[in-house]
């Protein structure tokens, strides 16, 4: 069976939707971060697929994906550090409880 571009894109969009849904509804900050990763990875898949089907023989999309993964790793580390610090301060990782940054 010839692989269609849709076969890559549909899982990616489902993944992205899950990420968005998770990001908006989860209360646990770790879970929110996992949702964020889902969205990122969905985008990465899109990059790779479009690169493969639209511009075969070029590598920009692949490069961007690698770049995004690296950034995502750094960002995750930073986010975890923040979460740990927040947890230390308020003994909680429930995001609805942490709304001090306003006004």
């Amino acid at each position: 069976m010839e692989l269609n571009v849709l076969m890559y894109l549909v899982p990616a969009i489902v993944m992205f939707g899950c990420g968005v849904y998770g990001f908006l509804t989860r209360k646990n900050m770790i879970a929110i971060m996992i949702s964020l990763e889902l969205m990122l990875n969905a985008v990465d898949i899109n990059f790779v697929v479009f690169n493969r089907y639209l511009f075969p023989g070029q590598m920009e999309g692949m490069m961007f994906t690698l770049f995004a993964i690296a950034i995502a790793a750094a960002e995750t580390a930073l986010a975890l550090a923040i979460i740990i610090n927040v947890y230390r301060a308020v003994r909680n990782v429930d995001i609805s409880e942490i709304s001090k940054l306003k006004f």
Partner: protein
Amino acid sequence: MPFSYSIAVVALPLLMFLVLGLLDDRLGRRTAGVIGTVAMLVTTVLAYGVALTYFFGTGQGQIVDGIRQTVTVWNPAWLTFTEDLVVRMGIALDPIAAMMLVVITTVSLMVHLYSLGYMSNHEGEPEKGYQRYYAFLGLFTFSMLGLVVATNIFQVFIFFEMVGVSSYLLIGFYYTSPAAVHASKKAFIVTRLADLFFLLGILILSFYTGTFDFESLVGTGGAAARVAQGSAHGGTFMGISIMAWALTFIFIGGAGKSAMYPLHIWLPDAMEGPTPVSALIHAATMVVAGVYLVAKLFPLYVLEQGAMDVIAVVGAFTAFYAAAIACTQSDIKRALAFSTISQIAFMMTSLAVSSSDVALAVSPSDALIEIHGGRGLGYMASMFHLFTHAMFKALLFLCAGAIIHAVGSNENSAMHGLHKHMPITSIAFLIGCLAIAGIPPFAGFWSKDEILVACYAKGLGWGLWMTMVAGLTAFYMFRLYLLIFFWSDHKQHGHHAPADAHWTMTVPLIILAAISVVAGFVPAHDMVTWDGKPLHTQLDWTVAGSSVLVACLGIGLAWRLYYKENDAPERMKAAASGLWTAAYHRFYMDELYQFITHKVIFQCVSKPIAWFDRKVIDGTMNLMGTVTQYCAAMVRPLQSGKVQAYVLTYLIGALVLAAALIACVLI
């Protein structure tokens, strides 16, 4: 330059003010008094030198062709408004200025000397602020001298303000007493109100005539030209020529200082000041500044009959009004204060009636005018009375001071029967009373007689009215005299019997009494006339006789009522209780002023304005702030702090934008 030393007459008191004022407590009390008095003595000697040279000397330009000239000694520019309107600070000598120099320095010297004793203690304590007192006296003397030698009307205004302030400071000398503070405030504000009109008068006059200088305003031939110029330029306002407005306004300024009705209310209260101050400022010198002002501008006034009529009516009314009140006062200083108001009104009236024979050109055949040398008699009489009155009123006040010093009260009920205890004061006071009552040969007789003649020349009614007031004067003065020195011999006067005061206080009394006896023989008609030409006068026996008669009637009545303790005054009081009470309360003028200032100005103007400012104007500004904050509060909840809410908002926004974009592309 002739008379160049006259600058010292003005400068020396100013120097004294600065020296005594700046050194203050660093000088001993006694030293300050002595320095002040000696400086004043020097000033007096110099002023006499100036005046005597001016009147009797020759060859210094003071008399040309038999006419006394104005000698301008010194006239540097002080403040330049425009090329024409320049305020100068100068010294100009004319007959009345020279006369005033004598009056001011004489009385001031007497008061300086008298105060050495009078001010040495206050209610048993050594007086605080003795140095300050002498400094203020210096300031006052300087201001008053500066006023009389003024070369231009603006200089007069400047020194009007200065004497006002000196008066304020001296009335409020006992500044710990609320009554004194209140009186000083009242004096200043009432005269300030009058000065406002004076200023407006100056503005109008100077705008339409283009000058401040007396020389060009009233100098030879100047007056008519200026009035014509002003009237032509300014036209009329409300049917009255602009010059008449200006002159009336200027008169109101003078009326404030000279305590003419209805601006007189400050003067009786001003008696809260030390008595020597009352003698100097509120009897002899400052209060005649208004008369002096009108006299200075006399050549202009005679050309504006309307303004003159206002002065005459105000003067004649005030003379009677104040005399009537003086009959009922029990505080001896207030009685004297009302007497002062009445006498100054005499001077004003006299000035005002004298226009009738000048401007209206009464036919030369008019017998009375002919006999008395005609024109400007009233002017001469007024200035003459100013001179004599200064002497005997200062005398009366200083006597009152000595009495108050001895018995420690201003009320005549605390006195009675003092003639045995204080013989010198008693005699001096009697001389003062005789002088003011117009009994020959004392000073007041001569001057008052001329005033009455001038009034008769204006009209029989004027003459009779003023003669009646003269009779009233004799009555209230002797009422005062008899109540103080006679009435009852058995009065208990506190712990120690009152006695004549220290020599520093009695010597001025004796000197002033002597002057009051002889001052009437000064040949004023040769010296102080409006046009500088000698005036030929002679005694009019009808007028003189009738006025003496009326005066004697007044004295007789007073003698009958007040010589010995009896109940006649009480019965009279009861018979006319309404009138008496009204007069005792000064016809409620003070209450009226109180009402206007407190109820109308403070409650109905200032308070609402302050409220308006805080609530409406400031309220609007605060409202703008509040509205801004309110709007901010409305949009603030968007920033909820909940990250997921932000994301949702972002997502919706992004979707809406995307949808819009797609819609645009498709359509």
